[in-house]
C-alpha cells in the first residue's frame, strides 16, 4: 500500500506535463486510485495515458468549483464538439463519475440538434444496413424527422450514393 506523507500526488499527462494534485482529487479518479492501491512501494509519479494537459486543467477547474459547492458553474461551452468528445473520453478513461455525467449530458445536449449524418461521423460508426433496410427504417419513423430544426447542410440523406 502506497503511503505518502505528502498530500499531493504527481500525475504525468500524455504530453509529458507533471501535475501535482491533492490526494482528494486523485481519489475522484478511480483509475488512478486503483493504481495507488495496487502499488507495493511509494508511487512517485503516475502516468495517465490518453489525458493531456489541457484536460487536466479543466479537471482541476471542475474540482475547485465542486469543492466550493459551485459545480453548476462549470462550463464546457468554449469547447467545440470534437474537443468535448476528446475530453469526455479522457474523463471516461480516468473513471471520474460526476464529471463523466456532466460531460455526457453536455454531449447529449449538443447532439440533440444534429442530423443523423453528423452523429454517425461524430462516433465514427459505419452504416451496416443495406440501402433497402435503411430506406425501410427511415420510412417507418418518418414522422420523427419532421418539425425539428436540424442543420440541413449536414443531413446525410442528401449525400447518399
Amino acid at each position, binding site marked *: 500500500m502506497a503511503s505518502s506523507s505528502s498530500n499531493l500526488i504527481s500525475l504525468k499527462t500524455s504530453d509529458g506535463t507533471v501535475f501535482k494534485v491533492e490526494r482528494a482529487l486523485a481519489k475522484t479518479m478511480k483509475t488512478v486510485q486503483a493504481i495507488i492501491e495496487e502499488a507495493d512501494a511509494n508511487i512517485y509519479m503516475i502516468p495517465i495515458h490518453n489525458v493531456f494537459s489541457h484536460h487536466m486543467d479543466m479537471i482541476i477547474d471542475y474540482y475547485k468549483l465542486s469543492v466550493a459547492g459551485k459545480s453548476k458553474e462549470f462550463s464546457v461551452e468554449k469547447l467545440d464538439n*470534437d474537443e468535448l468528445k476528446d475530453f469526455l473520453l479522457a474523463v471516461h478513461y480516468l473513471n471520474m463519475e460526476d464529471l463523466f455525467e456532466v460531460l455526457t449530458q453536455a454531449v447529449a445536449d449538443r447532439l440533440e440538434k444534429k442530423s443523423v449524418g453528423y452523429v454517425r461521423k461524430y462516433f465514427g460508426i459505419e452504416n451496416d444496413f443495406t440501402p433497402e433496410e435503411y430506406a425501410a427504417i427511415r420510412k417507418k419513423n418518418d414522422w*420523427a424527422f419532421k418539425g425539428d430544426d436540424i442543420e440541413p447542410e449536414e443531413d446525410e440523406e442528401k449525400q447518399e450514393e
Partner: protein
Amino acid sequence: MALHSNGTTGTIASLPSLPLELVEEEILSRLPVKKLLQLRCICKSWKSLISDDPKFAKKHLRMSNILKHKHLIMNVLGDRILWDSPLSSVFSNVSNHTVTLTELNNPISISRNISEICSCDGILCFTICEEGGQSAVLCNPSLRQYSTLPPLKNHRKREYDYQNAVYSFGYDHVNDVYKVIAISGKYTEVDVYTLGTNNWRSIQDFPYCPPCNHGVFVGGTVTWLAYEVSNRNISYVIVSLDLKTESYQKIPQPDLKKDHWTLGMFRDCLCIFASNKMLLDVWIMQEYGIKESWTKLYNVPYVGTQCTYPRTGYISDDDQVLFILYDLIDSKYKLVVYNSKNGNMNIPKIQQMDGFMILGVYVESLISLPCSY
C-alpha cells in the same frame, strides 16, 4: 460496429475500464425519444439498443424522469384531436409565452370521446366512450404506438355490465409487467389484463361501491376514491389494490370537510385535491397507509366568483400546481398554473382549448407496447 475514437494518441491503458459502448449508451439514454427514433438508422446495434433492449428502455426511462422529459396531453371532450405539449412549455414563466401544441395523430379507435386518461412510465391508458359502452386503448405517445385490449365483454358473459367499466393502469415492479384494472360500473366485479397476454383475468370483487373515476398509480398500487354507505350516509373511502398481490386495502383518510375530492400523485405519494367553491387544498400522504402522515401541502386561493373542477391536478417538481378552473365570468374552462412559492396564478396561453378538458401527463419512454399498431 466499427468505432474509432479520434484525437487520442497514446496507447489504451491496460487497466480495466468501461467499454466504449457504455459511453454511447450513457449519451443516448439522455436524448429525447424523437431523436432516438431518428438514430435508429445509424447502425444495427443502435437500432437494436433503441428498439429491442428492455434494459436500455428502463435506463432511458430513469433518465427521462430525472431530466424531466415530460409532456402534457390534452383533449377537449367531444373533439377528436389529441394535443401534446412539453410540460416545460406549460409551466414556463416567460411573459407572453404561448404554449406550443402538437397534434398527435391517432387511429380510428381513439376518434371517439375520451373520458379518462391514466399514465404510467410513458404509457397512457385511454377510456373511450362509445354507444356500446366504455373500452380502453393503450398508447405510447412518444413512439406513436397504440394497442387495443381484448374486449372485456368476451370475458364475462353479461354484456351489459361493462357499459361503464372504470379502467386504471399501473406497473407491477415485482413481476415486471404492466396491468390494466377494470372495475364494472354497475357491479363490483374486477378484472385484470396483463400486457403481453391475450386475456382478462377475474380477481376479487371491489370491496366498496365502485369508483366513478380511474385510480392513481402510486407506491406499487392503484388507489381509487370510492364510496361507502353506512347509516344511510355516503362518504368517501380510499381503496388501494396492490398490483403484485392483487389484494385490497382501505387507506385512512385525513379529517377534512371539503366538498369535492380528487386523487393525485406527487413524488410517489398519494395526494388529495380537496375543493369547495372558494379554496383548493392539496394534501399529501407522506407515508403510504399512515393516517398521521397526511399533511397539507398547499392552499390555492380563488379569485372572485370562479369555482374549480380539479378533476385532474398535477404538481411539478418545483411545486407548481396545474389544474382546471371553470371561469364563471367568461364561461370557459381554463388551465391554471399556481406557483406555490410566490402565490402567482398564471393562465398559460393555449389556443384551441375551448371546452371541458381532459389532461394527462406522461414521461417520454421507449417502453414498447406488445401487439401494437
